[in-house]
């Protein structure tokens, strides 16, 4: 089977030199997606992809095509695609075909990219292992007995296994960065307010962002360039001056201050992860960056803030799944009973747990003690990041305390599962951008290095990420399991 070029940049060059056509590239991606052995895909959209590829070839023939023209990509199945089933990996939405596309999909359509299909995820993006999908777990291509991370596990694996040149995910507490780390690819969450959520199934609206999975930092910046910007249909998007997100990629880190929070080097962290991240910090020093101690003393409380705000917002957002206008309905003896049966049978266990937790935190008598308290600590966490960024240009940490764990290892212990995101969710609470990049292997499995920057400072974040990537080449490592 034909393999895809390694990166968007390479593929774009081949397309422009006429060494490959968009149709050939798309057929290769479709063949690989159909042959996928990791349960990464929920739907492969052959006809749609070929039609887009044909249009891309026409555009390339006319010249002046944008950089993503003809590039096959994978869409997390929580992002609405007009005319293509969108399930959020939930039984309750099985069969739902959106009448319109999410703004991010429209932007990629306009940029000439080719949608290969829809990828598997934890149901409604609730999970850190992709084991909560109603349509079965995704397997990690580095070791198929292990999870790929979640919730955007299918998107991470589609890129890691060379089945698409990039993918979109959503990140509410780490759902792009953590599977990026565990699957050995670049996974990036933009600053809250950068990317439209219009047409994306809402989870926790004050935390959700859409972002890309790619093989390289440069590819990540290219996709972000197409995604970023104000959308009149999402009032939380910021209207900022256009900027070239690739402008600082080659500048190196000499003279930059890199913040290292001691609270991110905890007891529960695997030795191999700590070793890889310490090596990365030394590499930055070697390149002339200054390492600065910063304090993020509330990191420990981030998990509590997150597990109040996120289920509370989710319980409100998911109230819309009532079996009346779309999705599956389970008829009961009266309307109220229909709601209860529809939701009881339509949602999986983790979604029900979070609905109950969130409803509890918002209920009379508990609202102030839980929800308002969490929002106050959120203010303090944001202030602590503000103080840290007064002392440094970027913060570098591990993405996850562990490498990919065994399928089934944490399914009966929600709290242990939630701890996977302890290093990523502070970024969502504070609205900051973060990217996870490959940081070598520990016991044969990928480690992720997280780089966070201040709000709207993605180009600095990319600069720091690219400096490490170019020096180490960890991003060129490939899983043995990858289909040849």
């Amino acid at each position: 089977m034909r393999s895809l070029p390694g990166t968007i940049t390479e593929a774009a060059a081949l397309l422009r030199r006429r060494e490959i056509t968009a149709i050939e590239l798309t057929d290769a991606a479709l063949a690989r997606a159909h042959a996928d052995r990791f349960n990464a895909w929920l739907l492969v959209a052959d006809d749609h992809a070929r039609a887009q590829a044909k249009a891309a070839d026409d555009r390339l023939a006319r010249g002046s095509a944008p950089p993503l023209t003809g590039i096959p990509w994978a869409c997390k199945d929580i992002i609405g695609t007009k005319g293509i089933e969108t399930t959020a990996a939930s039984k309750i939405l099985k069969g739902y075909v959106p009448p319109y596309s999410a703004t991010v999909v429209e932007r990629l359509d306009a940029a000439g990219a080719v949608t290969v299909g829809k990828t598997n995820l934890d149901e409604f993006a609730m999970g850190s292992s992709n084991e909560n999908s109603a349509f079965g777990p995704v397997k990690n291509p580095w070791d198929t007995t292990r999870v790929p991370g979640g919730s955007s596990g299918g998107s991470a694996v589609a890129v890691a296994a060379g089945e698409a040149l990039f993918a979109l995910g959503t990140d509410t507490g780490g759902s792009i960065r953590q599977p990026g780390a565990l699957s050995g690819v670049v996974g990036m969450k933009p600053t809250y307010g950068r990317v439209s959520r219009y047409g994306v199934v809402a989870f926790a609206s004050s935390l959700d962002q859409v972002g890309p999975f790619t093989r390289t930092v440069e590819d990540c910046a290219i996709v972000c360039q197409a995604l970023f910007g104000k959308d009149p249909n999402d009032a939380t998007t910021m209207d900022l001056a256009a900027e070239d997100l690739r402008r600082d990629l080659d500048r190196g880190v000499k003279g930059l201050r890199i913040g290292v929070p001691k609270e991110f080097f905890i007891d529960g962290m695997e030795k191999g992860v700590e070793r890889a991240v310490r090596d990365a910090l030394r590499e930055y020093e070697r390149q002339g960056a200054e390492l600065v101690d910063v304090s993020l003393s509330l990191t420990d409380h981030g998990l509590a803030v997150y597990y109040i705000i996120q289920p509370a917002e989710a319980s409100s957002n998911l109230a819309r799944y009532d079996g009346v206008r779309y999705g599956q309905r389970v008829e009961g003896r009266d309307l109220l009973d229909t709601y209860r049966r529809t939701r009881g049978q339509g949602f999986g266990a983790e979604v029900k747990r979070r609905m109950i937790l969130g409803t509890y935190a918002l209920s009379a008598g508990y609202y102030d003690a839980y929800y308002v308290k969490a929002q106050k600590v959120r203010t303090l966490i944001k202030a602590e990041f503000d103080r840290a960024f007064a002392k440094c240009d970027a913060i570098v940490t591990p993405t996850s305390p562990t490498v990919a764990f065994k399928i089934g290892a944490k399914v009966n212990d929600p709290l242990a599962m939630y701890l996977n995101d302890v290093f990523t969710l502070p970024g969502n609470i504070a609205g900051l951008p973060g990217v996870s990049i490959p940081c070598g292997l520990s016991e044969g499995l990928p480690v992720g290095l997280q780089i966070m920057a201040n709000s709207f400072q993605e180009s600095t974040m990319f600069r720091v990420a690219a400096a490490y990537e170019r020096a180490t080449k960890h991003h060129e490592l490939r899983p043995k399991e990858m289909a040849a």
Partner: protein
Amino acid sequence: MPIDRQTIVHVADLARIQLTDDEIGRFTDQLSVVLDAVARLAEVDTSVVAPSASTLPLHNVEREDEARPGLTTEQALANAPKGGRDGEFFRVQEVLEER
């Protein structure tokens, strides 16, 4: 145990979710552990702190109230569940009883 069986049943009812007996038992145990963990927030002094609903420097975002194209009736009804459509309407069970 910060949350008991009865509370789980009550909250599930508020959330309009039917649970099996087995789920009620499991969720009581699991959510007790989670609530114990989040209860640690009480340690943080927030006496002079305002809550943040969002991290954005945005406030009232306004636009002109203009008519724009939207979904057609057919598009809006296309995803109605089985038995959930009646002509140009969604069909649900009656909620008002005749006296």
